[in-house]
């Protein structure tokens, strides 16, 4: 369902974009998820949406976003390896943004996926992870669909303004065309630079794929195997804590992490 334009064109949507890297060649490109965030923004607010990048305006790959039909891309000038969090939150606080869209995780740099959370914390806004669709907005409340694993969706209501990150469940980004990419404008503003201490001192090493939990298949018949393959992932031993105090909750989580060997 396409939201009717009446609801959303006046919406002040900002998409935060980064420089991506192609998975097989490693060449710079528009980042896949960030482009999906822009796509979602374009569907909501049309060309009135804002696209913001904190980094180097000379990166040609930024034009990949302009090619989606955006007239202007706002660049907050930041040196490589700066912590862009503060520059972004300063900018966003002044921007009347009602909805901020980001990808879930950058394809280059630290790629920790922390930015949307840290930003939400700094701004004090709610965050929706894995936004798939904005259904409608009334009286400042957005009715959205959140993507869950295996194609499931959860309907949420969020008070605006809020931050939402998108992953591959969001609509595929439209093609980036050469003409609009060439015409589009990159407007550059200086912004406070905050060096990223960790990134400066730390060392980068290639990621190793995270080991997968062994799946013990107990199924005897084909039908059972099918069921096991398609069923919701369920830890089985999980425990739902409701109406407990923060301390109890934290203790339960701590215990679980100890049991799983994440913390020692």
């Amino acid at each position, binding site marked *: 369902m396409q939201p009717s334009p009446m609801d959303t064109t006046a919406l002040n949507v900002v998409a935060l974009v980064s420089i991506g890297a192609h998975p097989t*060649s490693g060449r710079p490109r528009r980042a896949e998820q960030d482009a999906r965030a822009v796509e979602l923004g374009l569907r909501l607010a049309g060309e009135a949406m804002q696209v913001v990048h904190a980094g180097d305006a000379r990166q040609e790959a930024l034009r990949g976003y302009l090619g989606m039909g955006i007239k202007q891309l706002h660049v907050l000038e930041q040196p490589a390896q700066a912590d862009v969090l503060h520059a972004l939150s300063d900018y966003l606080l002044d921007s009347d943004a009602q909805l901020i869209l980001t990808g879930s995780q950058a394809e280059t740099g630290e790629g920790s996926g922390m930015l949307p959370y840290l930003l939400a914390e700094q701004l004090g806004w709610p965050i929706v992870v894995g936004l798939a669709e904005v259904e409608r907005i009334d009286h400042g409340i957005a009715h959205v669909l959140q993507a869950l694993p295996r194609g499931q969706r959860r309907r949420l209501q969020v008070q605006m303004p809020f931050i939402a990150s998108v992953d591959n469940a969001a609509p595929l980004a439209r*093609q980036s065309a*050469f003409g609009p990419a060439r015409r589009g404008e990159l407007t550059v503003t200086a912004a406070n630079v905050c060096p990223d201490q960790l990134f400066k001192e730390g060392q980068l090493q290639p990621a190793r794929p995270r080991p997968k939990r062994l799946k013990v298949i107990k199924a005897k018949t084909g039908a059972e195997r099918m069921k096991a393959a398609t069923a919701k992932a369920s830890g089985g031993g999980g425990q739902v804590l409701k109406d407990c105090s923060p301390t109890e909750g934290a203790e339960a989580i701590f215990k679980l992490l100890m049991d799983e060997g994440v913390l020692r």
Partner: protein
Amino acid sequence: MMLNTVLPILLFAALALAVIGAMKRFAMWRRGRAAQVDWIGGLLAMPRRYMVDLHHVVARDKYIANTHVATAGGFVLAAVLAILVHGLGLHNRILGFTLLVATGLMFVGALFVAKRRLNPPARLSKGPWMRLPKSLLAFSASLFIATLPVAGILPAGFGGWLLAAILLLGIAWGVSELFFGMTWGGPMKHAFAGALHLAWHRRAERFGGGRSTGLKALDLDDPQTPLGVEKPKDFTWNQLLGFDACVQCGKCEAACPAFAAGQPLNPKKLIQDMVVGLAGGTDAKFAGSPYPGKKIGEHSGAPHLPIVSLDGKALVDAETLWSCTTCRACVEECPMMIEHVDAIVDMRRHLTLEKGATPNKGAEVLENLIATDNPGGFAPGGRLNWAADLDLPLMRDKQEADVLFWVGDGAFDMRNQRTLRALVKVLKAANVDFAVLGLEERDSGDVARRLGDEATFQQLAKRNISTLAQYRFNTIVSADPHSFHVLKNEYGAFGGDYSVLHHSTYIDQLISSGKLNLSQHQGASVTYHDPCYLGRYNGEYEAPRSVLKAIGIEVKEMQRSGFRSRCCGGGGGAPITDIPGKQRIPDMRMVDIKETGAEIVAVGCPQCTAMLEGVVEPRPQIKDIAELVAEALVETTATRPAQREAVEAV
């Protein structure tokens, strides 16, 4: 004498109207963008282009060629003489007799035109075109009778008022069709626009036996240049003139594989839609076959309106443009030498470069080309994996070689790797001094360009050219006709001029210079499928056949072979845009192949191989010429290391 007073008025009035119409029509063409033409030289060359080049195409259909010579020749002569005799009153017996001969000739021709129209094939347009033979007959017969007194065969004033009136009516009908109908948009427009189109053709190199098939480059350095064609007025004015020259003979429609497959494309209708666009109006008057699956009368356009509307109807639907395989069968058949493919790619350019609306897998393929230099998005570092055990000489190491073997993106395709390995075996057996670019090679840009992405094409082209500029070689040899065509005909505009050969041509040269020791092909009967980009684009029909002959294969020719070869469906990015039809083009081609009873179809193109092998079995086997030659190689006693490796390879 009524005739003697009224006829001149009639003739000159018709001529005056014709001139006014011509000026109006000319102004319509000139709405298009500027183009460099040789105004005078073109006009001077026009008669020759008409009588030699155009006739060469028309003469493929003897019936209509003779008919046209009689009718058109008779008419031109009759028109000139009629103006002299009846217009200026030069009542000279010799002129009179000549005029009688001319009108007689025209009448006979018109009878044959009428005969074809008795039961016209589907490709011909009906509507006003059904009226044309009658107009021709009326004009020639009336003029004939009216001239009899001049020749002294009948007394002046014979027949009285009634006959004179009838004759006048006949001539009036005739001149309105033939004189000013020519410039006001009737069927005879083809003669007027056609003559000027020949004079100011956008690819004058095509005349005099030349060939001009490379797409024209867009000037991307100038931000003012429109990126392709959005509105009819974005075509160059001589392209508009070209569209106007169409006689609606439907030869293009009959040859078009997309039309036959029931995809929503008919090259003839497309050209007529462009005519609608340049003049403004709807397609309701079109009296030929529609785009399969699309009703006539629902589309309209004007010079200043977009041709394609992405969310509604305009002049042409986008899927019509994306159905084309750029096989050039239409251009090859067109007696008016109209350039359909140029027009289609021009309009695609706008859709891709401005609208970002390349359908289906298009966007993904283009993104891959930008990010990985190959359409499949494979890691660029794997480009030479197919030859990991072949120890191929690299240009980077050698710097210099006789032959630069252009591998192409088939390097990433397991089926095509067999062809490539076979070709390496042949090259090594002939002791050719060759080398490959290896990881320095990039996609040639063929598919990007045909999908309208001129920017990506030019990037790839420029990078390839600067790579090639580092090395010294005499010839580029490629087993991919698409790379071959692009390197040979489309890199020149960017400063890359090379001698490029298709592997069949090169193998043919190796054979005739005695460098290959070949046995005879065993058994199976073979037919050969001409790839569009080798045949129609580059005129190479002979070499593949002579290579096959050298290994003892007598090709069982398909009915549609040589310049009439039917496309496999794999060109122009058609498998990527994948516009649905009623059947698939490769299936239709396989029917052609099966009709010959051949067990093997020899091919010379990775696209053709992939498309034809995609047809469900049982079907003949598909083998590249390189594979057939490699199978026929006789292992000589020599113990060259290269030879030993090649034996293991295939």
